Structure formats: C-alpha cells, structure tokens
C-alpha cells in the first residue's frame, strides 16, 4: 500500500494504525488506499487528513518543505494535533471543505509553523479539496501546498530598500536624510520591529554616540538612551566593538532592556543585529541597531538586507556631510574676502593722517633747506619720494575698497576723451623717452563726448602707461583713441615682455602678481590692473587684454558714448579746461626712478608739475588732531566793520585765532560748523541779534557749552541781567578798555574749558564707542550723535539736530516697505519710550543698510521732559545672511522639484537670475567634444549657443577650482559673474548683468553660494543618470533581439518594473541552409536574479543550436549547461528548427507550454509532441525526443511563455485555447498585427502578473496570382488590393510593401499602355497577370501581359524631368533585380525584392 514512496512509505508502515480510528491498513476502504497512493506518488507538496479525527498523512515533498522536525511524529496523528499552532487558521477551512464539499483556495497565507524548533513566519499558497469515501461521502481532505515564504519576505525587503532609494530630493541635511530613512524603515516593522541609529561624536573622553534616529521605539526607552557617553565601561550597545567595524549580534533578553516594543508582531524581538555605518577610509559614522524578526532565522538574506539598509544610511550621511563641508568652505571664503576689504579700508584711513603729518613738514623742510648740505637734501628727497609712493598706494587701496563696498562716488562730466587722454599721455612722455622707447600718441578727435569721472579716468590711463613702461625694455609704447562700433576705444599697446597665456585669465585679479618676470622694478601691489578694471566698469565700459609672450601686450578699453548707461544723479556739467591733476605726479615720479640715472638729479622740476601736499580734503580728524596745541579760537560777530577789525586785531595780538562774521545768523552757522572756544557778539545786529544768538546756541546741545561774551552799547543793570538770563556767560558794556576785554575773554575761555572738561570727556568716550550712539528728545529729533553713528548713516554733524523724519529714513515713494518699517519703529519708540528695533536706513550715498537700535529714556538735565539715549549697530550683513539662507532654501526646494538634468538646469538658471537680478544666466556642459550643451534662462532657442563673451567666460572659469567666482566683462559693456560647477572642467555657469551695474560683493557671494549648491546637485544627478544608463545598457545586452528577420514578430513584457528584462525569453537564430532556430524559455523566479540566469541560458541556447543536429540534441546540451548554473534548473524551454524550403518545423519541448500552429484558413492545433521535463530535471536514463510538423503555406506559428495564458482558477488549456482563437482570427494579418491582437486580447484586467514572451512566425503564404483585363483600367485598384493583402499575410514590412506596390503598379500601368497603343481594334483583349511569391528572404514578382512592349525611348537612365519614363526608373530604384522580356506575344517583367537589406 505504501510502496509509491519508499522512505515515507516505510515510516507510514511503522505507524500503529490499530490505535487510530482508521484501523489496520488492510481494512481501509479502496478510496483511502487510492488517496494515499496518489499522495505518495506526487512530487507536489501535499498532505491529507482522513476520518473522524482527520488522521494526518503527507508525502516526501511536504515533509521536506513544511513538516520539518515534526516528521515522522506527525504521521497517523490527528491533524489538529499536528498543526495545533495554526489550527485557528486552518481548522475552520477544513471544516468548510468537509461540510460543503467545495475546495478552498488561499494565497500566501501567513502561518506560524514550529517546524524548526521555533514559531517561524511562513507563507503558503494552498488548496484544500474534499476526499470522498467509496460511498461518495466527504470523509477527508487533501491539501496541495506550495510555500511562498521566500518570495513574500524577499518582496517585502525589496520594497523597503526601494523606498529608501526613492528620496526625491537631491540634497538633504544629515538629519533630514536620517528622518526620511526612518520613515521608510518604520513601514517595515516585520523585518525591523524597531531600529536605532546612533552617530559617533568625539568628545574629550573619547568617542560618544548620540541617538540620531529611531523607528518603532519611543524616545527615552531604556534601550534607546539619547547619548552613549564616552568611557562608559558597559554601554547599552557595544560601542567599542562597533568602532572596530564588527557587526555584533546582541541578545535583547536582558533586564536592562525592560519591555521592548514588538513591531508588527505580538512578541518583542529577542535579538538585534548592530551594524556600523561604514565610512570610506575612516572610522564608522555611527551604527544601526536593527531589532530582528524573532520569527525568521538570521540567514544570509536577512543579514544582507540589514547590510544594504546600513549601506544606504551611511551613503546618505556621507553625501549630507560632504555637502555641508562645501557649503561651509564657500562661506568661509566669502567671509575672508569681506574681512580683507574692511581691513584695507580701515588701514588706509589710518595711514593717511600720519602721511599728511609727514609730507607737510617735509615739503616745508625742502623749501627751507634748499641751500643746505646736499646729503641732507638727498635724504629729504628720499623721504619725500617714499611718502609720495606710500600715498599713491594708500589712495589706490582706498579706491579699491570703496568700489568693493559700492561706495565709490563718481561724477561723470562730458569730456573730449581724445584730448583728455592725450594730455595724460604727455605727462609720461619724458619718462618713456628717457627709457629709450618710442612713444606714439594717436588721439584724433571723436565724434561725440564721452562721460568721464576725470579723477578715475586719470588713474586708468596712468596705471596702464606706468604698467607698459615697467615691462617694456625695447621698442615702443602706443596709446590710441578711436571710435568703433558706436563706442569709444582706447588702446594702450607695448612691445614689452608680454603675459604668459596661462596667466591671462587672472590678469585683472586683485593682488595677483605674475612672478619671476623681468620688469624695471620689483615693486607693485598687484592692485593696479584690478583697480583699472573696476574703474572702467564704473564707466559702463570694458577692458580686455591680449598678449603674446615676448612680443607685447595690448589693453583695449571700450566706453559707450553718451550717458544712458550711467546712473542718473551722477552727471555733472562739463568742467573747466582740462588740466592734469596732482595725482599724476606719483606715477611719473615712480616711473622715473625705475630708469637708470635718477631723474631727480637732473633737477628739471620746471618741466614737471610741482608735487602738492597730500591733504585728504574731508579729513576733519586731521585738523582736530592739533586742537590742544592751538590757541583758543574766538568768533567775533559784529555788524560794524571798524569794531570787527579792532576786536580782531586786539585778540590776535593776544594770541587768539580769530574769525569774524557780520551778524548772529552767520555766527550761529559758523559755530555749528566749527565750534569756537569763545563767541564775542554785539547785541544789536541784523537778521539775528546777540540775545537770539545766545538762545539758539544754548538750545542746541552741541553748542550749549560755548561761552558767549555779549557787547552792548546799552548800559544798565537790566540790560546786563537780560543778557545773562538769556544765557550769556558775561556782559561788557561799550566802551570798554582793551585790558578789560582781554581779561574777560581769558576768564571766559578758562572757565568754559574747565566747565567743558567733563563734557569733553563724555564726548570723547562716546566718540570712542564702536557702536553708533545718539541722543534724542521726545519728538524723535536727534540732538547729538557720535562719529560712528554719523559714519553709519553717512551724514555729517553739521546737520544736527536731525528732526523726524530723519534724512536717512527711506522715502515713502521709492521704498514703501522701508518707510513703513521706520514709521512703525518710530511709533513704538514714542509710545514705549524707547526699546529695541531694527530699521532700514538709506545711507547718504544711496545704499540701504539695516540698523539694530536700542534706546532707553532718562530725565532731561533741564528738568523738562525726557531724553533718550540709543545705540545703533549695522546688522546689514546679518540680514543679508538671513535673506541668503532663505534664498538658498527656496533654491534648493526648486531644484529638488525638478526632474531631469535639463529641466533642473533651466530651473537653476531661472532661480539664480531672479536671486541676483541677472539679465541672463547660461550653463554649459561639456561632454566629449568642444561645443558645450547650453542651458539657461531666459531659455535659449533650440540650437542657440551663447555669445562670444559668455562662451569665453564659461571657458575661462571651467578649469578654475571649485567654488571660485570670477568677474569678467560681458557684451556691450555688461559685466558677468562666472563659476565652475565641478572641479573637472566639464561644466560652468555665467550670469550677465545689465550694462553699467557693477556687481556688488553681496551679489557675488550669493552667486557663489547658489552655484556651489547647484554644483552639488548636478554632480549627484549626473551620477544617477549615469548609473541608470549603465543598468539599461546591461539589460539590453541580455535582452532578446528586437531586429527580427522578415516574417517574425515578437513581444516581451517583464513582470517587475522598472526592469526591462525578466526570466522569460525568446530568440531567433539564423542557421545554415536557410533554416532558422526559434526558442522560447522561462526561468524559475522573477526579476533581476531570473534575468541573470536567462541571459546565460539565452547565449547558451544560441551556441548549442548552431552546433546540435536537432532540437532534442540542443536541449540535451542545455540540460548539461543548466545543471552548472545556479538557478537554471527547472527552466522550461521550447526549441524548434524551421525549414521554410521543406515546409516543416522540427521541435522538442522541455516542460514548456505547447506552441500554437494556425493555418492560413484559421484551423489550429498545438505542437504538443516530444514533450519532456524541464532543463536539468531529467532522470539519468531519459533521452529527449523530437517531432516534426508540417508548415502549410501561410501558416502562423506562435511560441509563448506561460505568463500569456496562465490564469488563477482556470486550467491552462483554457488560456491556450483563447490565445489560439485570437491567432486564428488574424491568420491572414501581418505578424506584427497578430502579436498586438494576442497581447491585448490576453491581458488580464489587472495587467500581466508574470513575464510574458511571445514569438510569432509567419510561414510564406501560397503564391499570389491575379489576372485582370486591360480593357478596364479600374481593375488596377483590384490588383493593388490583392497584392496588399498578400504582402500583409506574408509578413512584409510596410516600407518594403510600399516599394513593391509601386513597382508592380508601374509595370501594370505599362502593360495598359501596351494594350492601347497601336493595337488593332479587333484584336483580342489584352490580359495582365500579376504573380508574387515569397522565397526565403525575397519576394519575386512577375507582371506579364499579352500586348507589345513600348520601348522606353532612350530615357532609361536620365529622362528629362517631367517627361514620361519615370516608371521604369522607379522599378529599378525600388526593386533589387528587374528584368524585362518583351516579345511579340507579350511582355514579362520579373522583379525581385530582397527583404533583408
């Protein structure tokens, strides 16, 4: 009874059946015996239950796959005992089967099986069907089961990995990366009940770890401490082991973990795998604690899964950190640049004062010691020369830093550029000629004036000439002015040593000096050319340089005519006749000293302008310096000229410095402009009298302390009291003696000085404050402010007091937002009596800064109302930084939303253009060839490149180090910012700004930050696209051919997107003797692993088919091959050889569904002979067989894989039938159409679940033969219709079919002409015959008539256009071989078309 399987049978026989309700096997009914026999002989995994207790039986496959350690214990026991752990799930199902007699079906049902010593998560697809006894009653059930555990769990893990890789944003911070990953990991609480991600931090005691992410576990749980401190001898997680790179398995069964969360399960995990987040070339970033599914073994797949998750986290962290580093580097560079500018600005100011105090006395000494010892004079000259040089350098540095800060004040006046330039050049003539060089000045008048800032333009020309002289030893220096292309052009050319090509891009860079070159002097700061470029740009112009090393250098300046390009408000009327200012002298002096034989010795001072004292015109500090040492300053106000002169003379003789004015108002103005130590004023004066003057002075905090001595003709107590009450310090009645006046004056001055000492101290203190300081009254008027505050707003102390609205409050019309902010702050300040506020301020020179102010109130010293003291700090940089952050965040978001690279570049260009207010932005990507692909905003038209200047800029910067930004001239006076987008020179970006708008440091910085972000994103996107392209290429390499021979059509649908390959395949292999091998196969499994096996088998099948004698031998060879490839076993393959000449197909099947053969008439049958087992499954003594079937003309053969026809709950036959009916319905259609119909008809509602491969072959149909009468030309249409139909059935492609149709039509049309031309009317009607046949890969066409041939009249090769005769030429052109056989009884045209070409 149990003979069908020796092993299980033996164990079944050993069961004590007498103890079961079934009794001894000899007594079993026939139905039970049959069921047991079926069970044991099946290779499918099955078990069955029989009788009242549902006694358990199973076969070998079930034992192996499912039962595990319960064998053989389970045999003969009640099923409810065997499957006690899952009886809740399966018991009711079995009862249903027993009660209803209907089978059940469950797919991928989760069952916990105790087959390996622990409850194991497993999935099973099974059907319970009823078993009946001999009487037909249901007494048991049979379960056919296949286990899906690997597939279900594999898919679940793949989903998690795919989710991890689905991050749509390109760049994230480290925390965002981890948060995203956590959200994905949290979705798979089966494989990862909980996870913890720790990152290592170095602290003083060693390495600590902090919790950076978690899933499935609450914060603060004992297993998830926020920090694992360094030096902890027994940390919760084994940090030391992880730092060594090991991945320990940690038991979670420990009191220290308390109750752990269970994830998707009912019981908490018992083990966790802890894996380091590996860092390339360094210690790990941290580690991942992955709590493990207690219902699955930690096998290789599980380990690999955790490993891939960890790898993904580590890669994310690496990417985020690298991005942060780059970002920080760019910001540090910008900060450094800013600091440098500030430093130079400060230091230059500091230099000027001592320089003034050196140069003044030196000039004086030179004058006084003109006749002194030559050595003394020489030393004075040295001091003087070097002072000049230092002054020049300081002035240049100041210019550069002013431009840098956007605070260069320019005044453009219309000028005769040629004349101005020529005059500047003439200053240099003597120096150039003394150097032995020719000096050519070529400055013809220009048609229109050019607007110049004279001071700046002098610096431009003098710097260039000085530069030329410095580097030229022979030949000439040439300066020329001309008009060209609507612009004024100034060129300075020399025949000097030139500039090496590699230095050209950096020529205009600040502080960049070309080292190791020969020059007349080693001196130089490296800012001359940078300054020149900036000054030219301020003029809305450009400067370019061209140079040949050893031959010379030419600088070319282009300036627009007119003033449309200059900011309004900077224009002034033309000045007086041009003269060269003193600023030229330092240049010439310096140049002369480079020449041999010091020019100063020749003493020719008359030819040169006399050097003037360097006096910073606005430097009020300079005069203040001397304050203490000077005598007291007295201001005399009297309308009587005699009295003024008398008082002045008197006081001067006493050592006072005296200023006189004629009335009170003038006195008030003078004092406000420059405080006096004493004011002596008449009482009676026009405009403002003495008492009014006193009141005004006392009302102003700044002048309140100035002592006033009133003089009056009015005597008497009252007058004097009136004067003193008004606030005068003393009162003198005319006439008064000189001694009395001087005594009173001295007393007042001394008293005032004594009185003022405290306030002066206070003032000094306030002025020393770095922050702006101000004093206001209740109305908001600023009564007093320190120097720092005045510098901040750009107004001088002369304007005090400043009443609300202060002159620096933004204009409500031009800047409504700024005005609103300031007004709001002012209201708050008045209501609350001070406070803190940040307001926009329009600096005197027009730019906007932001001040953070803080003010507090105090009682007014005079007891009336309150005063407010406040401080102000420039927070423009902070605000800009904040705005920059916001801009960057928006930029990053916009880029993240963009998909492909091209879309991303357009988005980036648009965002950058908007952020920096650029006119246009262009991005170039270089691939292998020289012409880059250009993207940008506004979008370039298709095929549009970039202008020469933009291309030049992109090309210059692409090789620069990453994160560098260059300022370059653009087209038509515009300027550009350009930066590389990677370090390899393959991409760069350039932004072009409108003409006349200098690029500020802020814009440059913002551009740098945005482009370095773009660089990051671009690099990552390029990597991704490359990886994808590689993956697709590899997939296509193992896919089946898409170019099929004539007569074939194929369709392929992989089951697992986005893969384009799967486990199914088809192939068409041309064989010798005009035969063709066709193969369809199906590897076990799905997705990439199956595709890899498929690729190998496909290659192998091609090789064996070429070698083997027939399909059976080919499959036998494949058996051997498959047994050696892991995963190739059990592949089903159908293999056939088509012999069109013989009209046969010889085939053999290795467990593959049978192909369908459909005749032209629509009858069909299956190629179901020669069937055997799948590859490598054959018992040793089995041989593969082959069978041969006939291919009738026009037959259709379809090979397919089971995905096409297999449907759940439906026998395979039904699907095969449906497919066959569809092919039969289209038996005459083109093979491509047949394939389309089959694929669409067979598609299940939810789409194909498995891979599907379909290969269709159309055997050549029977030859076509049509005969028509030439009497009716409309028959031509019939002829074409029949030919079209036949060609479609023969599977001829549409292009070839069109050619054949036209050639046949021409031949037939010719035949018609034969029929009508020169034939007797009574002759028999001409018949036209068309026949067509498909022979191997050619179509043979014959058109014959019974008329007489019309000679083509010598136009065979080249007919005159538009004349008759194209027909024959068309036939020759469209067909491969044409022969015409005219005879007296008719003409036959034979044509052949090769379908392979």
């Amino acid at each position, binding site marked *: 009874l149990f003979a069908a399987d020796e092993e299980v049978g033996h164990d079944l026989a050993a069961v004590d059946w007498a103890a079961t309700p079934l009794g001894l096997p000899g007594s079993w009914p026939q139905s039970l015996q049959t069921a047991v026999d079926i069970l044991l002989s099946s290779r499918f995994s099955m078990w069955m239950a029989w009788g009242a207790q549902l006694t358990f039986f199973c076969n070998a496959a079930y034992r192996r796959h499912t039962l595990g350690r319960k064998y053989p214990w389970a045999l003969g026991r009640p099923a409810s005992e065997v499957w006690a752990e899952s009886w809740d799930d399966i018991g009711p199902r079995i009862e249903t089967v027993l009660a209803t007699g209907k089978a059940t079906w469950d797919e991928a049902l989760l069952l916990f099986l105790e087959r390996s010593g622990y409850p194991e998560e497993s999935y099973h697809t099974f059907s319970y069907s009823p078993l009946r006894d001999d009487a037909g009653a249901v007494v048991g059930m049979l379960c056919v089961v296949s286990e899906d555990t690997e597939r279900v769990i594999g898919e679940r893990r793949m989903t998690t990995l795919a989710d991890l890789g689905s991050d749509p944003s390109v760049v994230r911070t480290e925390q965002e990366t981890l948060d995203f990953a956590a959200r994905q990991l949290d979705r798979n609480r089966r494989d990862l009940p909980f996870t913890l991600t720790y990152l290592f931090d170095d602290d003083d005691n060693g390495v600590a770890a902090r919790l950076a992410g978690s899933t499935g576990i609450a914060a603060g749980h004992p297993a998830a401490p926020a920090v694992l401190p360094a030096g902890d001898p027994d940390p919760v997680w084994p940090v030391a082991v992880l730092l060594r790179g090991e991945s320990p398995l940690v038991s979670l069964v420990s009191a220290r973990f308390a109750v752990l969360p269970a994830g998707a399960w009912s019981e908490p995990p018992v083990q966790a795998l802890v894996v380091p987040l590996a860092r390339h070339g360094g210690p790990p970033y941290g580690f991942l604690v992955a709590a493990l599914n207690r219902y699955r073994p930690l096998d290789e797949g599980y380990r690999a899964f955790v490993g891939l998750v960890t790898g993904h986290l580590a890669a994310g962290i690496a990417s985020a950190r690298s991005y942060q580093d780059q970002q920080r580097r760019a910001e540090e560079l910008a900060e450094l640049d800013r600091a440098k500018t500030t430093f130079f600005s400060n230091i230059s100011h500091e230099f000027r004062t001592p320089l003034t105090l050196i140069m003044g006395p030196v000039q004086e000494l030179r004058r006084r010691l003109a006749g002194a010892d030559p050595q003394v004079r020489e030393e004075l000259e040295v001091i003087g020369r070097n002072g000049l040089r230092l002054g020049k350098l300081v002035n240049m540095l100041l210019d550069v830093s002013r431009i840098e800060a956007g605070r260069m004040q320019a005044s453009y006046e219309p000028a005769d550029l040629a004349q101005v330039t020529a005059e500047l050049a003439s200053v240099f003539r003597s120096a150039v000629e003394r150097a032995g060089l020719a000096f050519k000045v070529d400055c013809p008048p220009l048609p229109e004036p050019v607007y110049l800032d004279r001071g700046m333009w002098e610096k431009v020309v003098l710097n260039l000439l000085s530069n030329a002289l410095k580097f030229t030893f022979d030949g000439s220096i040439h300066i020329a002015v001309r008009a060209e292309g609507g612009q004024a052009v100034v060129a300075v050319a020399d025949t000097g040593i030139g500039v090496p090509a590699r230095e050209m891009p950096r020529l205009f860079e600040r502080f960049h000096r070309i080292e190791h070159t020969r020059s007349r002097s080693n001196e130089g700061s490296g800012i001359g050319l940078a300054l020149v470029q900036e000054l030219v740009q301020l003029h809305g112009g450009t400067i370019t340089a061209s140079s040949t090393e050893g031959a010379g250098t030419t600088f070319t300046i282009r300036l627009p005519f007119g003033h449309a390009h200059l900011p309004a408000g900077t224009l002034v009327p033309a000045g007086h006749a041009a003269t060269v200012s003193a600023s030229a002298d330092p240049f010439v002096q310096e140049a002369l000293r480079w020449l041999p034989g010091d020019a100063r010795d020749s003493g020719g001072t008359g030819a040169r302008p006399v050097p003037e004292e360097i006096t910073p015109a606005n430097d009020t500090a300079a005069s203040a310096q001397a304050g203490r040492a000077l005598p007291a300053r007295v201001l005399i106000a009297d309308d009587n000229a005699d009295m003024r002169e008398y008082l002045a003379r008197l006081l001067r003789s006493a050592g006072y410095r005296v200023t006189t004015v004629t009335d009170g108002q003038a006195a008030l103005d003078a004092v406000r402009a420059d405080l006096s130590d004493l004011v002596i004023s008449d009482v009676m004066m026009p405009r403002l009298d003495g008492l009014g003057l006193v009141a005004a002075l006392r009302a102003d905090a700044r002048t309140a302390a100035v002592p006033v001595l009133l003089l009056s003709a009015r005597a008497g107590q009252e007058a004097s009291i009136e004067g003193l009450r008004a606030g005068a310090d003393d009162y003198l009645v005319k006439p008064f003696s000189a001694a009395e006046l001087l005594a009173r004056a001295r007393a007042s001055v001394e008293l005032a000085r004594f009185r003022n000492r405290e306030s002066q101290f206070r003032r000094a203190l306030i002025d020393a404050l770095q922050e702006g300081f101000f004093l206001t009254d209740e109305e908001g008027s600023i009564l007093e402010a320190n120097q720092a505050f005045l510098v901040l707003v750009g107004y001088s102390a002369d304007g005090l007091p400043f009443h609300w609205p202060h002159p620096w409050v933004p204009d409500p019309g031009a800047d409504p937002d700024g005005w609103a902010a300031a007004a709001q702050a002012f209201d708050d300040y008045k209501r609350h009596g001070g406070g803190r506020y940040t307001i926009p301020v329009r600096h005197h020179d027009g730019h906007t800064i932001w001040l953070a102010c803080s003010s507090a109130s105090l009682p007014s010293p005079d007891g009336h109302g309150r005063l407010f003291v406040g401080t102000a700090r420039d927070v423009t940089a902070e605000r800009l930084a904040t705005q920059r952050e916001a801009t960057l965040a928006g930029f990053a978001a916009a880029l993240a939303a963009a998909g492909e690279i091209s879309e991303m570049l357009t988005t980036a260009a648009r965002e950058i253009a908007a952020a920096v207010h650029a006119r246009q932005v262009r991005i170039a990507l270089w691939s292998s060839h020289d012409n880059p692909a250009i993207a940008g905003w506004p979008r370039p038209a298709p095929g549009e490149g970039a202008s020469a200047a933009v291309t030049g800029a992109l090309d210059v910067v692409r090789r620069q180090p990453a994160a560098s930004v260059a300022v370059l001239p653009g087209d038509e006076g515009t300027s550009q910012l350009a930066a590389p987008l990677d370090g390899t020179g393959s991409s760069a970006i350039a932004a072009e700004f409108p003409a006349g708008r200098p690029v500020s440091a802020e814009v440059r910085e913002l551009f740098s930050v945005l482009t370095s972000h773009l660089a990051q994103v671009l690099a990552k996107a390029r990597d991704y696209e490359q990886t994808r392209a590689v993956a697709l290429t590899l997939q296509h390499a193992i896919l089946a051919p898409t170019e099929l021979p004539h007569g074939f059509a194929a369709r392929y649908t992989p089951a697992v997107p986005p893969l384009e390959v799967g486990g199914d395949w088809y192939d068409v292999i041309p064989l010798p003797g005009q035969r063709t091998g066709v193969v369809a196969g199906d590897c076990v499994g799905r997705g990439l692993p199956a595709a890899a096996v498929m690729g190998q088998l496909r290659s192998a099948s091609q090789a064996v088919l070429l070698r083997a004698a027939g399909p059976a031998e080919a499959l036998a060879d494949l058996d051997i091959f498959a047994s050696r490839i892991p995963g190739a076993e059990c592949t089903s393959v159908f293999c056939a050889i088509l012999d069109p000449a013989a009209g046969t197909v010889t085939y053999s099947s290795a467990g593959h569904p049978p192909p369908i053969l459909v005749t032209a008439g629509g009858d069909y049958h299956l190629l179901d002979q020669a069937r055997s087992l799948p590859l490598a499954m054959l018992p040793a003594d089995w041989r593969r067989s082959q069978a041969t079937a006939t291919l009738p003309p026009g037959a259709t053969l379809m090979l397919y894989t089971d995905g096409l026809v297999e449907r759940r709950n439906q026998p395979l036959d039904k699907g095969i039938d449906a497919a066959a009916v569809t092919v039969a319905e289209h038996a005459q259609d083109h093979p491509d159409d047949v394939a389309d119909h089959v694929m669409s008809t067979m598609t299940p509602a939810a789409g194909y679940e498995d891979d599907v491969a379909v290969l269709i072959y159309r055997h050549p149909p029977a030859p076509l033969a049509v005969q028509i009468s030439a009497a*009716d*030309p*409309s*028959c*031509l*249409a*019939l002829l*074409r*219709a029949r030919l079209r139909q036949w060609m479609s059935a023969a599977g001829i492609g*549409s*292009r070839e079919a*069109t*050619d054949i*149709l*036209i050639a046949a*039509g*021409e031949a037939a*049309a010719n035949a*018609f002409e034969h029929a009508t031309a020169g034939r007797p009317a009574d002759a028999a009607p001409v018949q036209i015959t068309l026949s067509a046949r498909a022979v191997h890969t050619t179509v043979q066409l014959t058109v014959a008539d019974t008329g007489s041939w019309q000679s083509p009249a010598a136009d065979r090769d080249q007919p005159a*256009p*538009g*004349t*008759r*005769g*194209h*027909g024959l*030429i*068309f036939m020759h*052109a*469209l067909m491969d071989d044409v022969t015409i056989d005219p005879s007296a009884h008719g003409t036959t045209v034979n044509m052949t078309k090769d379908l392979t070409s």
Partner: protein
Amino acid sequence: MTNDATPAGPAHHRPASGSASAASPQAWFEFLPAGEREPAIVRAVGDIDLTNVGQFQAALHQAAAASSAITADMTAVTYCDSAAIRALFIAARQAQLTIEVSTAGPINETLLRVSGLDQIATIVTPD
C-alpha cells in the same frame, strides 16, 4: 494643414470616378483657393493611378491658374505612381510648388530622389 475647415467655394472632385471599382480605396482631390491663406492648396487622398491622375492634374492646374504658389498636400496619399509624379512636374512648371509628404507614405525619399522632384519643388514633411 487646415483641411478640416471647409472654406467657401472649394472645388471638390469626389469620388475619383463614377465607374471606379469597389475594390479601389476611395480617392478624391480638393482644391482650397488662396484666399486668406497663401498659397493655394491641393489635397489628395487615397490611391492615385491611371484612372484618376487626370483629375489630380486638373486640380493642380486650377490651383496654378489661381495662385503663383501652390502646395500639394500628399500626406493622405496611399499609392502614387509615375503618372502622378509627372502631374507634379507639370504643376511645378506653372507655379512655385511645395509638396507635403508623410515619411511613411508612398512618396518616399527614393521616389523623390530618383525622379528629381526634390530639385524643382520644396519638400515638406509635416510629421
């Protein structure tokens, strides 16, 4: 091509011939005179062969008489032999000719090159 709007007064020739066999795909020609549009358009649909090339030529002639520039829209032509090519040659002598062809249609590159039609007319491929 704007052939869906039917302008006032186009000359229609459809079907090609009253006696045409039922097997022949329906063929017709329509002439849209140059009014708002320039040039005039002759649109051909279906198979052009001996039986209807005369009508095609007539439509072209009518167009050439009305306008100095004409466009032959051949995108819907399914068959076309040397007779039709000849008609186009004649039209090109009468007016400045633009021919619109479909890449998948019978008037392919070979036909244009071999006939020399591409040298005397402008070839446009709308698809």
